[in-house]
């Protein structure tokens, strides 16, 4: 078992519901009701679930956006403590995130290059020509021409924006990359490109990946281990091979069944090597 990077133990996160009341307890909804996951160095964990399952909450909790009601989140064996500024800063350097909405996750008033440079400045304190070099390299690594760094998000396509977001997240070489529905808002043909890109980056830089999605097929492609979340609880956790060939939990089975209906049924799919006959 590789060195454990992230350990989540019996995490419980509650959100307040409704307005704060003067008398009586605040009503709350339990987004996560005792979740435990592990990710090792270079590991890939997919978290699948439907809306309301709490999968995004898990990402937010690891990033320090949601305060746990109970349970622990350990990074390299040390508990993540929101109040310790220094510790959080170090954590930020090692854990980065790519969000769902490619246009929304970039500041509309900053160019692509500025967005990526901001990461360098905030996390490594790097500015000036050295930073510029890193920005260009980062954009190149995600498949974007360096001239695009002067574009604003609304001048880029969804796929390009998401690449910028990935560049921003990976320019500091984090140890763990969290992808919260990172390909769900993209066109189908672009999804494949971005999935390939993520795979490539994680392999090349030995980054661990926490991939959150409702799309089982994509998760299967990217992640070696998968956890299925339902209403705040993990109902099944298994390796890729086991989960898809022999799912134990009935909920997992229903998810797989629904996903199979939605994907093509053709028994052998299109021929992988279409041959063009001259006309």
């Amino acid at each position, binding site marked *: 078992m590789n060195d454990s990077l992230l350990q989540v133990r019996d995490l419980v996160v509650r959100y307040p519901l409704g307005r704060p009341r003067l008398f009586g307890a605040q009503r709350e909804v339990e987004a996560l009701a005792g979740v435990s996951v592990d990710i090792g160095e270079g590991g890939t964990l997919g978290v699948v679930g439907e809306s309301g399952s709490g999968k995004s909450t898990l990402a937010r909790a690891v*990033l320090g*956006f949601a305060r746990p009601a109970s349970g622990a989140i350990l990074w390299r064996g040390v508990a993540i403590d929101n109040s310790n500024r220094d510790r*959080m*800063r170090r954590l*930020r*350097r090692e854990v*980065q*995130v790519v*969000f*769902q*909405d490619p246009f*929304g*996750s*970039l*500041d*509309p*008033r900053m160019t692509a290059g500025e967005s990526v440079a*901001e*990461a360098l400045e*905030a*996390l490594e304190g790097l500015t000036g020509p050295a930073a510029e070099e890193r920005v260009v390299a980062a954009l*190149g690594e995600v*498949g*974007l*021409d360096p*001239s*695009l760094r*002067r*574009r*604003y998000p*609304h*001048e880029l396509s969804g796929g*390009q924006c998401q*690449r910028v*977001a990935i560049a*921003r997240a990976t320019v500091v070489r984090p140890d763990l990359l969290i992808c919260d529905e990172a390909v769900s808002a993209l066109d189908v043909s672009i999804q494949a490109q971005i999935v390939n890109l993520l795979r490539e980056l994680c392999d090349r830089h030995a980054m661990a990946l926490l991939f959150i999605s409702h799309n089982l097929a994509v998760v299967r492609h990217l992640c070696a281990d998968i956890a299925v979340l339902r209403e705040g609880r993990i109902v099944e956790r298994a390796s890729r091979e086991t989960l898809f060939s022999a799912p134990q939990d009935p909920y997992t089975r229903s998810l797989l069944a629904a996903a199979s209906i939605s994907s093509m049924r053709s028994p052998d799919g299109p021929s992988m090597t279409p041959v063009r006959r001259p006309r």
Partner: protein
Amino acid sequence: MTEAATTPGGGLWTDSWRRLRRNRAAVAALCILGALVVAATVGPWFSPYTIDHVDWSLGALATPPAAAHSHWLGTDGNGRDLFVRVWAGTRVSLLVALLATAVSLAIGVAWGATAGYIGGRVDGWMMRVVDVLYALPYMFFVIILTVVFGRSLFLIFVAIGAVGWLTMARIVRGQALALRHREFVEAAIALGLPSRRIIARHIVPNVLGTVIVYATLTVPQVILFESFLSFLGLGVQEPLTSLGRLVAEGALEMESAPWLLLVPSAVLGVILLCLNFLGDGLRDALDPRQR
């Protein structure tokens, strides 16, 4: 495999400027305002009179406009040339309006952006301060200031700015609250940026659109407010004048010397109209989502 740029770029501001240029009403408004500013600055040079020169040579005081004695817009009840006074008044009104708006902008944006971004109890307290200040009888406050510090142009800026920022703060706070939950702000937090950086770098530039629009709508309000103060005798003092004062004085002589009311009112009306059109045009131009 790299993706090259497929469309010509341009900064966000050039983009906005281009969009503003297409809005004919806004462009016209901008030109007219520009012309008024130029006129207000150089106009008086063409006239032989000053703002406080009392012309005894005329048959009667308060003469109507006539080219004969170079009183192109006539004189007021004290024999002073209206042409020169109108431009002097325009200068003062615009100056007060711009400076007071700038002050209220600076305070209001900082206050509102911080309150909206931080949220929670801090937000609550900061906005309660705004609520309390709103509730204070404004006139009372201005009168006390006047008594303590004496009357001066500077005081008027402070007084108006000190009140103008309240609404700006409320508006900016609302925007900041909405922005706080946008993903790019969360991304910035995930980068470990301290709050003040996030507010300065991400919140404020994104509320700038609304702020600028609201500022162009505040300027008319300030001008009117200043005239109200002048009307009460708390504004600019003689021989300095403002559009508001001129309108107030003109209203008193409405029946016998209508030009005294019409001329400054027309100038004031044109300024207000132009600012409104400009504000509208700016709002459309500054929205980055409209292509």
